[in-house]
């Protein structure tokens, strides 16, 4: 019984850390999907770029951990903004198929570039001293890195929710998600709003990718392998919301950890099966509004 309880605590803890990272990476996808209806399969590319950039900044340029993280995140956000203006923006009016094809093309390019630049083996930026070792909580000890991940992700999420619920910019985003034509006609520049939101979402993905490089291994095929998880989080949570993907990410994080712990021989089978059942029951996601 004690062993079972211990395994529950362990699954809850590791699942929470994984779910938090999944949320930080995927939330941008939910907002861009809700705002423009753009099917951005290449979202994982930004997360991967964040992880690899941080590795380069630390090992090649010798930056300390925190500035490297911040700089990687900013660089990816700026890069995504350029990409959005140059390429994405041309496809907003196009159908689903061109969007899907274009973003798959981006994934192919990113995977190839990452393999050429960094080789096929997983890489992760070295952890600073304050994130290595263990933390004692009650009678159990937890790896400091994961505790740090949970705390950092919690702070990011709180800031994001505050920004969207309490600021003028957040109100504009919510208005545009609700009804883009109406928002436009009351004078909101939805094109510019989308560019900034896209950059924010990509920056968050980069942050999540860099922060979680020890949880989700950073390899060149990252955007392919993790794509289905990011999509599941957004699809079961509900598009265009902040709370939906949070719920989705926690469910997937804890569910996936539990499956790997108890039934490793089945791999991710139950996650996919549960996702299918859930979407059959609620096609718009748990917290999504019916269309």
């Amino acid at each position, binding site marked *: 019984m004690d062993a079972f309880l211990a395994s529950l605590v362990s699954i809850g803890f590791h699942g929470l850390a994984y779910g938090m990272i999944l949320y930080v990476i995927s939330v941008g996808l939910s907002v861009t999907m809700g705002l423009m209806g753009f*099917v951005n399969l290449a979202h994982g590319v930004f997360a991967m770029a964040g992880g690899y950039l941080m590795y380069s900044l630390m090992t090649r340029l010798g930056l300390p951990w925190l500035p490297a993280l911040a700089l990687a995140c900013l660089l990816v956000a700026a890069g995504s903004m350029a990409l959005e203006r140059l390429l994405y923006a041309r496809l907003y009016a*196009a159908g689903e*198929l061109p969007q899907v094809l274009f973003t798959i093309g981006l994934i*192919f*390019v990113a995977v190839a570039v990452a*393999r050429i630049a960094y080789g096929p083996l997983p890489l992760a930026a070295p952890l600073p001293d304050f994130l290595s070792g263990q933390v004692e909580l009650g009678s159990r000890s937890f790896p400091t890195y994961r505790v740090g991940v949970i705390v950092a992700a919690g702070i990011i999420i709180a800031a994001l929710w505050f920004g969207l619920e309490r600021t003028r910019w957040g109100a504009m985003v919510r208005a545009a998600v609700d009804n883009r034509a109406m928002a436009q006609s009351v004078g909101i520049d939805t094109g510019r709003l989308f560019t900034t939101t896209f950059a924010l979402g990509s920056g968050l993905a980069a942050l999540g990718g860099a922060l979680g490089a020890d949880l989700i291994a950073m390899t060149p095929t990252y955007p392919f392998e993790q794509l289905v998880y990011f*999509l599941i989080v957004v699809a079961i949570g509900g598009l265009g919301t902040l709370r939906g993907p949070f719920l989705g990410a926690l469910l997937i994080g804890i569910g996936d950890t539990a499956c790997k712990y108890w039934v490793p021989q089945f*791999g991710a089978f139950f996650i996919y099966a549960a996702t299918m059942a859930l979407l*059959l029951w609620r096609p718009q996601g748990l917290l999504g509004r019916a269309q």
Partner: protein
Amino acid sequence: MAAASAIGYASSARLRPIELLPWALALAVFFFAPTYQPLAAYVLIIILFALSLDLIVGYGGIVTLGHSAYFGLGAYVAGVFAVRVTGDPLIGLAVAAAGAGLFGLVTGAVILRTHGLALLMLTLAITSIVLEVANKWTTVTGGADGLHSVPIQPILGYFRFDMFGRTAFVYCLIVVALCWWLVRTIVYSPFGVSLAGTRENDVRMAAVGAPVYRRRLLAYTISCTLAGIAGALLTQTTQFVGLSVLGFELSGELLVMLVLGGVRRIYGAFVGPVVFLVAKDYLAKQFPEYWYLGIGILLIVIVMFARGGILGILDGVLDRLRRGRR
């Protein structure tokens, strides 16, 4: 007329001479370039796979990332059936087609209730599930090693699969030609036009009384059956099946091939795989890393500048020539 064919309404179902060109080329390979038969057989199989995708993506407007699930299922069913029950290729082909079709019917009934992102994600989840099962159920599928030297008996007890790939090539050619005729018939039939209608405007189609969901499900099931046949052909002609017949990357590559040739034209599914696979045969071995970079850039360029693919560009050139003559 160009506009009408571009949205999938055929002006005439009569066979044009140019439509026989692929088959003439296939016969030319058989008679004049027999050393290319194994490659040509593989290309034919992928053509059938792309053709099945064109039916739902091009004509049905159902964008899927999981079509490799049905190809892979057909391949594995053919392999396991040959190992455990009988190595007769025609029975194996029928069983694989039925298996993939049935799986397509069941999964299609689920995923076609959703649309947009949820649909994409479900198709991705389905191919991930099949890959997971094939990988973990090692007693049946051989896991990561796959099934080697799958025993395949002579076709009809007479045509033995030879080491030069002669029988395999002719077998693929006949099966693919039959499937091509089926797809062509479907596309030009009232059902095909109604399917195109559900793509163009599903609300209006429902309003005029067409059973949109049932039409789509039927098209999806047929497409999955054809993909399963293609997978089974691959297992039977190579006598091997492994995890590479599954997964998102294969679905992605297949989409690239179809788009490269041209979506919603039937023959885009012929041109795309030929160009792609012949280029891959030459380039991928020499520059494996730059190959994927090239595909990615190519895909972005096609989406930005040439949505019609190679056949779309050809159409444009021919149109201009005709206008210039007038």
